[in-house]
């Protein structure tokens, strides 16, 4: 009996000790902020590459302002992770990501608008600013833009093709001479790729969503499945496997760049992210706009804008606003992020600073001068998958009208 009493006492004391230690820790972090003065904390989430590039600047911001800045790299599914974590209250204060997340982040109440001064706004490239504007509000500070362009092996194809027909004839000739095995490296894959096809689709007269009077995308005006899209895909089908063979399902996101760097193709339609590999392969290249169909509309690529967001449910919103609106808008940070991955900076000052050392930048910008911002409306999520699959089917030889009309029905069904 005595032993049992001792046991009970021990059982009761161990947790008390544990609780004692625990509560001591708790009080240090929450109850008395003055005890550890000037250590407000800012948590920033970014992908792996950018997290590394941000680190020195975050540290600088931290020491300048007497706060702790934590950078956390999120390797995968950044958007979903961010939305879910925000909802649970374990999200960051600042999120770095693509601008087309905005619609979904806003409907989930995950980000706050930012208020930029007129000067700050004038320092940002106009189309980048337009891309982060949603329902009339600015939802983040852009720092880099990206768009597709035609990257050309100048040894194989010295002249930039004016139309896609020119490109196909040059490519076919190279193939006949056994100098290349593919006409064009444009990623399609078994399930298509709407983003990479879009310039050709637009050139052939198709559109995804119409725009309303104020320039915003109008989800009620769906362009997939209408007569214009059928006509566009009839043109695209001529480039497909049953046509000239410029577009093939066997060229995927994994091998398109390698096809170009392996000199199997003289042309690659891709974005700034491809350049590092192209340079590594030692290929002489030039960057021009994506050529459109002869007599067609302009082949406008999508403009993607990398953006800093202020999280609505962050614990330190004032500091996050300070960081995003007053620190990210300075060129130094944009230059550092450019050095981490060469995408054209969205800040005009930063762009001017690096364009001297990198002649590609002006070319990217030129190729993207008519780029249209990737639609940020939540309804865009319904487009990607069915549109891509229709693309793959048509390139494989399916009937364009039947296929794209079915895709249109699927998309409008899931938008409602």
């Amino acid at each position, binding site marked *: 009996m005595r032993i049992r009493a001792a046991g009970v006492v021990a059982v009761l004391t161990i947790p008390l000790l544990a609780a004692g230690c*625990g*509560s001591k820790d708790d009080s240090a972090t929450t109850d008395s902020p003055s005890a550890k003065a000037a250590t*407000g904390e800012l948590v920033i989430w970014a992908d792996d590459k950018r997290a590394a590039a941000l680190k020195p600047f975050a540290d600088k911001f931290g020491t300048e302002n007497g706060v702790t800045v934590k950078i956390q790299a999120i390797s995968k599914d950044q958007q*979903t992770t961010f939305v879910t974590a925000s909802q649970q209250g374990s999200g960051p204060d600042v999120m770095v990501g693509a601008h087309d997340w905005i619609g979904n982040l806003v409907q989930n109440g995950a980000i706050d608008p930012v208020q930029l001064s007129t000067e700050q706004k004038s320092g940002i490239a106009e189309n980048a600013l337009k891309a982060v504007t949603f329902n009339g509000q600015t939802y983040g500070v852009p720092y880099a833009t990206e768009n597709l362009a035609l990257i050309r092996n100048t040894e194989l194809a010295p002249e930039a093709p004016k139309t896609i027909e020119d490109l196909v004839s040059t490519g076919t000739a190279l193939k006949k001479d056994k100098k290349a095995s593919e006409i064009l490296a444009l990623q399609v894959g078994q399930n298509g790729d709407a983003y990479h096809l879009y310039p050709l689709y637009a050139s052939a007269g198709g559109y995804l969503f119409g725009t309303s009077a104020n320039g915003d995308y109008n989800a009620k005006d769906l362009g997939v499945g209408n007569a214009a899209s059928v006509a566009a895909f009839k043109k695209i089908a001529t480039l497909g496997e049953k046509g000239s063979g410029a577009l093939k399902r066997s060229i995927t996101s994994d091998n398109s760049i390698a096809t170009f760097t392996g000199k199997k193709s003289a042309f690659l339609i891709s974005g700034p992210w491809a350049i590092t590999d192209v340079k590594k392969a030692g290929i002489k290249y030039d960057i021009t706009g994506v050529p459109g169909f002869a007599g067609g509309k302009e082949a406008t690529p999508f403009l993607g804008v990398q953006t800093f967001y202020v999280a609505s449910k962050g614990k330190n919103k*004032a500091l996050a606003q300070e960081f995003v609106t007053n620190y990210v808008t300075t060129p130094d940070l944009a230059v550092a992020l450019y050095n981490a991955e060469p995408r054209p900076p969205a800040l005009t000052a930063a762009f001017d600073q690096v364009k001297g050392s990198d002649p590609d930048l002006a070319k990217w910008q030129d190729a993207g001068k008519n780029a249209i911002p990737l639609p940020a409306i939540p309804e865009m999520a319904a487009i990607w998958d*069915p549109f891509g699959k229709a693309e793959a089917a048509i390139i494989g030889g399916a009937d364009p009208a039947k296929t794209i009309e079915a895709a249109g029905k699927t998309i409008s069904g*899931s938008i409602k």
Partner: protein
Amino acid sequence: MAGRIVKIVLLGLVVAIAVWAAFPLVANEAWIGLALVVVTTAVLLWLYLTPRHIPAKYLAPGTLLLIIFQIFPVIYTASTAFTNYGDGHRGSKDEAVVAIQSASVTQVPGSTQYALSVATTGDPATGPLFFLITDPATKQVSVGDADGLTKLDDATVSSSGKVTAAKGYTVLNAGQASLRSKEITALAVPVDGGAIRSSGLSRAYEGKAGRAYDQTCDCIKDTTTGKTWTADEKAGAFIAADGDRLTQGWKVGVGFSNFTRVITDRSISGPFLATLIWNFAFALGSTGGTFVLGMLVAVSLHSKRVRGRNLYRLILVLPYAMPAFAMLLVWRDMFNTDFGLINNLLGVHVDWLGETTSARIAVLLVQLWLGYPYMFLVTTGALQAIPAELSEASRIDGAGAWQSFRRIVLPLLMVALTPLLISSFAFNFNNFNAIYLTTDGGPFPADNPMNGATDLLITYTYRLAFGGSGAQYGYAAAISIFIFLIVGTVSAIAFRRTRQQEEVYA
């Protein structure tokens, strides 16, 4: 004595975990959760401190883990299936209202942007907060709090326009201010036509909320146009009379509508049967194929006449040792029509993943390669457990090698392996990665981008729930309950038959 010490330590740990869990529960005022923790801990302590209830002592840990890791997720999934939880409906109504209001705050057109310092009259950590703002044109400093804005003359202004010191006020540095972030964000200094709010810690702007929540009508009003969006508790959204709905909604219960949607939606019920049949074929083919191949290899390597058996075994296990995730992607590339290893080696031009039959064969081949080492391993283990005397005895009785395998070894193997085959079947029935990473359900018929030839129910429903307008967790949960019922029924039938089989051979 040692046992007693172990008991004390373990029970101490239990209580420590309970105390550790209690703090966040108290902080979040989750009283039901707290009550559960208290009751569970009390029951556990009572159970292990009384000398009675011996069987319960053995059952308690397993039961507890079962509840935490099995029953709780099932209940959670089931309860989610009755809500509209998903993108646009994640939080509570209050959160939606806050999101709508804060998203509607815009800068008053033509208004000034001020340089801002945050100050207090008391202690930097607790004193009341004030905004010290400087007009960039006139350099006039004003002080503001929730009551309004007054001019302030006795202040030192830096070159950037920020107030660095002011009589009667302590200017907070960024570190101090950042600790009071919530109050700073919430502080709005009312002025004519709007309110001055902070934009970070060094700038302030005059903003106006374009939309406001009105409690009396339970609606959101636009402050300029007067348009109203009334709360619809059934849809979990604010909807205007013209059908326009605000994107920020909230989570509500929707009854059985997710379930009826699964049953009545033509895009599901149409291709459901074909998908189900292929799903069974895939699960049976994957399990059966890997088992037959794995068993054949195991049986042939079981013979003592094979030299270097261990080396063979080592090599055969390699596919199992490599991460399936990466291997699936490698296989996908090997099936590429123009650049893939398989077509190049064989000198053919088969559109492997582009045709229904070839794509189905391809995924089964990949499964075979990935799965047979496991079957090989378990069969080898089971073979070694079968006494060699049995086979010898049958040989003496005049049975041939095939007969002895068919009549003696195989039945004994099946007794040991059938439960594994059933669980392998259940796993392959929902083998999401095997399809998602190789074909992603494709090839798709031209007229239906939602349902492909190699789609399993799980990949197909994943696309339905997450491929359209963002994530629809409630809907996905309803679908997964249906899949659970299918797999559960099949497994239950299979286990019942195994029991009969065991009785036959036992």
